[in-house]
């Protein structure tokens, strides 16, 4: 599978990563190589094999649906680049 510059730009936009022209060019080559190498999995017949969901056979534990933590917005937002009044602050999203 070969990936071109436009495909890289499309995935980068899905992943919200800004790339410059040179990075996009380089990544098209690198991703094509990696995906080409990964392609060898298609040799294997996996008909009827269940996709793995968990490496350890265990049932996910359930707990009571109750609040167990919280009530300290200042602590939660302590590392935010910008916070105000106990909220995260972001650039304007609504005109």
């Amino acid at each position, binding site marked *: 599978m070969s990936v071109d510059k436009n495909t890289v730009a499309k995935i980068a936009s899905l*992943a*919200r990563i800004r790339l410059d022209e040179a990075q996009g060019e380089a990544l098209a080559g690198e991703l094509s190589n990696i995906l080409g*190498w990964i392609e060898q999995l298609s040799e294997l017949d996996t008909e009827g094999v269940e996709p793995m969901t968990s*490496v350890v056979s265990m049932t996910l534990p359930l707990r009571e649906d109750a609040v167990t933590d919280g009530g300290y917005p200042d602590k939660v937002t302590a*590392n935010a680049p910008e916070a105000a009044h106990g909220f995260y602050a972001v650039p304007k999203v609504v005109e």
Partner: protein
Amino acid sequence: MSELTNLTIAGARDLLEKGETSARELTEAHVAAVEAARPLNAFITETPEKALAMAEASDKRRAAGEAGLLEGLPIGMKDLFCTEGVLTTAGSHILDGFHPTYESTVSGNLWNAGAVMLGKTNLDEFAMGSSNMTSFYGGVENPWRRAGDNRPLVPGGSSGGSASAVAARCALGATGTDTGGSIRQPAAFCGIVGMKPTYGRCSRWGVVAFASSLDQPGPMARTVQDTAIMLRAMASYDPKDSTSVDAPVPNYEAAMTGDIRGMKIGIPKEYRLDGMPDEIEALWQQGIKWLEEAGAETVEISLPHTHYALPTYYIIAPAEASSNLARYDGVRYGLREPGESLDEMYEATRGKGFGAEVKRRVLIGTYVLSAGYYDAYYNKARRVRSLIARDFAQAYESVDAILTPTAPSPAFGLGDKMDDPIAMYLNDVFTVPASLAGLPGISIPAGLSKDGLPLGLQVLGKAFDEETLFKVAGALETAAGFDALPGFLAA
């Protein structure tokens, strides 16, 4: 290297118990060693004041008769574990200035057991790498050099800072995390012991996530016994990690009886790679002989899907990483690059904050999970992963443990393989299959290459049978009698 910094964890524990040294004295020696080892760049953050305060508190606890399992023992903490109030970077620019307001379960368990934190060790960015070269804080040097060649070598990765620090005698032990080999490969490169527990044995809570279905914290130290002592303190059932196993933590150290008579050890024929250096093959054969001499029976086994493990890993790990790393958006922590709109701010922040390898993996992950490719790549890989796990399950019907080399080469030069991602990924060819199957593995230093560099052998065990793993590794360690020292030792 002082007498105190060359101790094993077990040896230091005995001296402390006998009152022949104090946590303070032991910690002062290690704080000085960490400083002396700065040229290695093994630590991103040194915490000498915290270490001394923890040591004093430890001596008080001991005096009050309340000594824990690791009471007063100074260790390094991989900078992937969140430590309350102490800068936690994951080796990434995007976590600039992040001071967690909470403690990871594993690091908390270690402090509760009395361990002393020397600092946060360097690593590949978000644990993505096999050389420690992808760290935003710069590469780490391996304290070993080739005989007659002064060029610096990588310590392996991603837990390269931890491996380098332990090998150079600036910490008695250190934590690592292993997703595809990130504890075992650097341990092999630096001539120390590195152990990856069964997935679910140690809590992942508070460990910066890379690939959640694979990530597993584990101990790194200079002897098998020391890793056994550390693991007992690190492991616990943790309701905050839904994949944490609710099973008692055994006394792993007690399991190391040295008696492996009658045990069956599998030798997987598919691990004999074309073009593998002769010295790796020779060491492997030597390991087989050692186990046989100790009374074990070795049998050839087949793990037929081994060849497909790396490509499977390079779909699953990036897919999970692309999802896990979505949280780094310039809103909640770390770096923010300004943008006119929210989307532009995200793109600018992530474009600037992630390094080349992280971008590569997030993009591969995004691609294999995107509409139209999800089934062909991601689901295909999850099916192959089931086959790989089945290979091991079938092998373990007839053997107790498996012996393989840890890595296909000794440590390589700083900066080598950087322009060829696939060549770099091949470092993990022997460690990735067990990671995909969630199984425990340990690397022990077993010999030297012709250039005088350490080489590791890997023992793999059954799920949650770390006791057998430590027992076999201990017997192998005794037989190997590895006592070579790196060229650089912290003064």
